[in-house]
């Protein structure tokens, strides 16, 4: 696997939270979702990767050879968008355009205004409406317009889908596909989310995080095949309880989650076994991690 980012023993310590040590790779040419509950360390991880904060320990290798993000044009090649506080609230869409033009060589103002119009966030040269006066959704749209208007090889987006209406989320997924297709295997997306449902169809690779640690990672198909979703009657569940990682019991039907190697055993006991989708997988894995932690 060709990786655009390789992290080894990455640690970021804060007073009340420690990320890592984590090891992971982001495959080149794909869209990777960083999934975790609020407070799992997704933003810290993205901030550390993008040089917003310095790691306490560990090493990150970018584009196969660079170990210092400040080196050369590395930051030029990475398009980072924070979930919030990216730009001062007193800025207008015009200020965002000028700031990006000054900050990045590969920023295309024309493309930025086209995207602003396409996303319905601002008209060309908008200098009156500040970010303060915009809705959360429009602020995200504006940030996305700014990052998609740049020539980048890696997009790192923190919660890009949150606060977006379904139509805009769908448009964002389309933009993701367009970006990856344009790159022809050379462009990569890494985005974080705590609700994968709306972005599942644009996720190729997933990294699941819990409490500052990576609990699972892999290509979605492979990842989903590592586990099985189990359903059945209460009596069946009494028999297979030991094989289950997580279970939910209702009055009539029960649901559970187990490792794929248990499949045969579960089927023999009379349970219905299915391959989970990414959303189901992430919920069960996070619950399992929580269970293990308590």
């Amino acid at each position, binding site marked *: 696997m060709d990786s655009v980012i390789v992290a080894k023993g990455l640690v970021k310590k804060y007073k009340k939270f420690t990320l890592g040590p984590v090891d992971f790779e982001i495959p080149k040419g794909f869209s990777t979702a960083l999934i975790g509950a609020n407070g799992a360390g997704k933003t810290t991880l993205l901030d550390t990767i993008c040089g917003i*904060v310095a790691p306490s320990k560990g090493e990150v290798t970018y584009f196969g050879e660079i170990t210092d993000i400040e080196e*050369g044009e*590395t930051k030029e090649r990475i398009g980072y968008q924070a979930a919030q506080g*990216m730009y001062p609230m007193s800025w207008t869409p015009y200020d965002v355009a000028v700031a990006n033009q000054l900050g990045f060589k590969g920023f295309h103002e024309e493309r930025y205004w086209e995207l602003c119009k396409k996303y319905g966030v601002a008209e060309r040269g908008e200098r009156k409406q500040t970010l303060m006066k915009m809705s959360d959704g429009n602020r995200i749209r504006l940030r996305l317009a700014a990052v998609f208007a740049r020539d980048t090889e890696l997009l790192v987006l923190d919660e890009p889908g949150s606060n977006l209406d379904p139509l805009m989320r769908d448009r964002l997924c389309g933009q993701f596909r367009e970006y990856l297709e344009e790159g022809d295997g050379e462009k990569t997306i890494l985005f974080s989310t705590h609700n994968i449902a709306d972005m599942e169809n644009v996720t190729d690779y997933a990294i699941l995080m819990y409490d500052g640690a990576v609990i699972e990672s892999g290509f979605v198909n492979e990842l989903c095949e590592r586990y099985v979703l189990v359903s059945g009657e209460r009596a069946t569940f009494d028999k297979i309880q030991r094989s289950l990682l997580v279970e939910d019991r209702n009055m009539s039907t029960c649901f559970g989650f187990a490792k794929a190697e248990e499949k045969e055993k579960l089927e023999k006991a009379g349970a219905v076994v299915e391959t989970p989708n990414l959303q189901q997988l992430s919920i069960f894995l996070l619950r399992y991690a929580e269970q293990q932690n308590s």
Partner: protein
Amino acid sequence: MRELVWQLNMKKPVILLLAGTFAVILFPICTMIGEDTVLEAICRMIFLTLGVTALMLYEERILLLRGKGPGYTFYRSMPHTAEKEKRRWCVADLFLVTTASVWFLFYEGLRLLVNDCGSAGFLYALFLGYLLCTHLFYRHPYILLCVIISGMFLLGFRPWVSVHWAWMLLAVGVFVLGEVWFYQNIGKLWVKER
């Protein structure tokens, strides 16, 4: 031109440098003009305005440097050179603006407004308290420097009154060199530290 307009609009270091430099250079001239003239009053008002503006912007810079202010993520995501330059200038500006603010706003400004040493002294002490709290909050060495300088003034060390103007020029020289030194050294450290 567009960049300059934007920089002014965005309150970038350029405006801080202008405010600080004007204040540092013009103040000794003003003190030489003499007391109680209209020109002096106008100059003092200008200094006061500059001082207030500089202080407000200065706080914004601190937030940015400490990685707490709005927009810092954008600055940190910018490529190395642009961002590094910016941060280094920010640190240099802090030094200059801190000094300028203390000198003009909080001694001359209050004297102008209150025109009474007792009340001015009280307000001055309040300001010191405020600075100290800010320092404890941000743990920024330049604010501590500001507190020390202010303390010296409060204790009666007023170089522009008791010291020959040549010493004043020397002081200005020291500040300018100090700014360059901070720009060259401390700015670099700040960048590495984060």
